[in-house]
């Protein structure tokens, strides 16, 4: 192996949608590291590769930027790194400025801006294949002469598509242009026009296929229909197709837990591992197939260029509610789980829109609430036909989803009233349609899967351990007849909570079950089973045994009140932990927890009292 005597630090930079990430994947393959820049939620991607000569290259994939003189946090990172002002990142030895061959008018402007920095640089004219197909001819030699830096052609999505770039980098001695002040926009665009006239032959400003697709997909009538159909397909996939994988995974987690339990001597350690960690973390991991499937769709739609179009179509109604078209993707993700949804709000540039989206994300019915809904609906709602074609149980479930969405819109709308003033911007580029490349999707999927598992491994694991301690200590006295949970701290907490929850119809069993439900909502079902002294550990078995019991013991008002409670379900600690990480503020966490609690309490109170009044 060659020792890296002269490892060279290069940075990739370019406008958003220039295909930079595909080129980065092409160069570095799977040898990538994804982290965050300190103090901000901007992703730092780095990797390395070895050129044929044996020279090592450390590659930094800088956040996409339209300009070096820009207000957004990710563009500020790009600017600071290039200028050598970033505290944790050394100034790169050379820059690779990536431009989309089909979008040179916009992208060459950025090249001129970067050139003024005076660092050694290479311009990579990317997506050369798409340009060839459209009959765009670019005279690389003339462009290189006019710019005074090497210009190469690359195809980010084709194997060997970065060969020319690697050759130039490997040769070394990349010339540095003269440093200069960045000219103003009018003269930058003037220079771009001159460059285009000299080196580029562009038969049409946009691809015909884009024109035709946009005519259909953004059509005032057909466009929204296609959008609804796409969303329906995604939901169908996430909830129906992921189920078998999920059951397999749940089985595997359960089996491993039992195997461990048999292996270890009975005692606190065994209890912590099986009842605490496997029960808590296991249930969260079981949602991984759903989350991955959802991300697969989102990544494919993102790469294809459709998601910005969806944001375009939905901007108006979402803006009216105090959100933005960009909120669409995070809120869609939140139907699987609010955690990836809140993480996805990073793509919302306006900080107020981002905060509003984070605040309402937990109101989207996440899949963790489904076990609770299913149990209560099957116990209390008769399975009968309504209007000849709908099942009443299905309608109630649908109503619960709608109630969540409507509440989210109302909350966002109220927040907008509150913080009035100031202008909100959308300013969204709609890139060319592309066929997504499987490699880029797989790498993206792997990254998100890893981020999610890391969260599970840190925040959720620690919360689970705390919950286990609350549930296990103190141990019941010898000869105790009641279930152990009643003697524990959680049990005592539940007894105290009963005073709080009595006006909304919750008995002490429900109050106790809500305590472990804080770690993960669906755990409330198995906790109810524990309280009712049913020795069922499996969720499904627990639900089956519980159903007739609660159907006879609980009044209808209590059941409906609990259903409504879970629309707002303020007690998901993992969500709150992620909110803290993403916003960096305890105040946001407190606001979210309080408003959700208040809404849940109010709505449940009304439901309970009104139902009791009607049913007498």
């Amino acid at each position, binding site marked *: 192996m060659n020792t890296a005597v002269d490892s060279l630090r290069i940075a990739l930079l370019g406008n958003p949608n220039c295909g930079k990430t595909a080129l980065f994947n092409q160069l570095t393959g799977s040898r990538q590291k994804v982290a965050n820049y300190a103090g901000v939620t901007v992703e730092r991607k780095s990797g390395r590769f070895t050129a044929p000569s044996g020279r090592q290259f450390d590659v930094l994939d800088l956040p996409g930027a339209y300009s070096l003189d820009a207000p957004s946090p990710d563009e500020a990172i790009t600017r600071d790194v290039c200028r050598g002002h970033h505290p944790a990142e050394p100034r790169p030895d050379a820059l690779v400025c990536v431009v989309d061959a*089909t979008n040179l008018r916009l992208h060459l402007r950025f090249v001129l801006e970067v050139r003024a920095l005076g660092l050694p640089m290479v311009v990579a004219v990317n997506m050369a294949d798409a340009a060839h197909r459209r009959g765009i001819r670019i005279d690389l030699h003339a462009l290189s002469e006019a710019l005074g830096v090497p210009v190469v052609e690359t195809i980010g999505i084709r194997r060997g598509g970065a060969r020319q770039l690697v050759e130039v980098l490997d040769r070394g001695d990349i010339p540095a242009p003269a440093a200069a002040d960045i000219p103003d926009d009018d003269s930058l*665009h003037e220079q771009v026009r001159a460059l285009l006239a000299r080196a580029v032959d562009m038969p049409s400003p946009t691809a015909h296929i884009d024109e035709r697709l946009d005519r259909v997909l*953004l059509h*005032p009538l057909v466009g929204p229909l296609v959008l609804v159909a796409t969303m329906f397909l995604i939901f169908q996939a996430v909830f129906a197709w992921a189920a078998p994988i999920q059951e397999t995974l749940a089985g595997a987690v359960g089996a491993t837990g039992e195997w461990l339990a048999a292996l270890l001597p009975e005692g606190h350690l065994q209890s912590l591992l099986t009842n605490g960690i496997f029960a808590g973390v296991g249930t969260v991991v079981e949602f991984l197939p759903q989350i991955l499937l959802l991300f697969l769709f989102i990544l494919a739609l993102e790469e294809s260029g459709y998601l910005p179009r969806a944001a375009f179509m939905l*901007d*108006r109604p979402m803006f009216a509610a105090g959100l933005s*078209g960009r909120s669409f993707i995070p809120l869609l993700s939140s139907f699987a789980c609010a955690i990836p949804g809140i993480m996805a709000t990073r793509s919302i540039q306006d900080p107020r829109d981002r905060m509003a989206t984070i605040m309402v994300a937990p109101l989207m019915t996440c899949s963790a609430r489904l076990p609770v809904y299913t149990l209560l609906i099957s116990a209390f709602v008769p399975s009968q036909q309504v209007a000849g074609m709908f099942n009443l149980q299905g309608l109630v479930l649908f109503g619960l989803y709608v109630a969540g969405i409507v509440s989210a819109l109302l909350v966002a709308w109220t927040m907008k009233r509150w913080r009035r003033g100031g202008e909100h*911007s*959308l300013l*969204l580029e709609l890139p060319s349609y592309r066929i997504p490349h499987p490699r880029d999707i797989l790498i993206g999927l792997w990254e998100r899967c890893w981020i999610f598992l890391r969260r599970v491994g840190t925040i959720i694991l620690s919360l689970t351990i705390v919950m286990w301690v609350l549930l296990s200590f103190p141990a019941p006295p010898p000869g105790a007849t009641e279930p152990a949970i009643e003697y524990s701290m959680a049990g005592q907490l539940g007894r105290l909570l009963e005073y709080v929850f009595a006006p909304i119809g919750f008995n002490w069993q429900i109050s106790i079950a809500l305590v472990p439900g804080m770690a993960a909502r669906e755990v409330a079902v198995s906790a109810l089973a524990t309280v009712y002294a049913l020795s069922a550990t499996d969720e499904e078995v627990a639900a089956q045994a519980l159903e007739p019991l609660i159907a006879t013991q609980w009044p209808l008002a209590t059941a409906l009140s609990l259903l409504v409670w879970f629309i707002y379900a303020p007690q998901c600690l993992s969500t709150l932990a992620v909110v803290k990480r993403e916003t960096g503020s305890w105040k946001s966490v407190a606001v979210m927890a309080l408003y959700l609690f208040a809404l849940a309490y109010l709505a449940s109170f009304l439901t309970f009292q009104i139902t009791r009044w009607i049913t007498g």
Partner: protein
Amino acid sequence: MTLSQLSKGACATVTGVEDRGPGDQLARRLRALGFVGGEAVRVVSVAPMGGDPLLVQVGYTRFALRRNEAERIRVEKVPA
């Protein structure tokens, strides 16, 4: 007139972007994206609900602009 006053399918030439107050970030961003004097623009489409935002082509790129953003861009209409 401003870009926001153009109807769907209309073509125009940009004459400039107006700042609203000192240090208008949005106006600066619009200029960086290519809305500068002499550039040709076209309203490709408008969103299905309420006709906002607009889909505007400038140079080789398409942007979704809300009406309040498009109001900053002064244009001269090109007869079809």
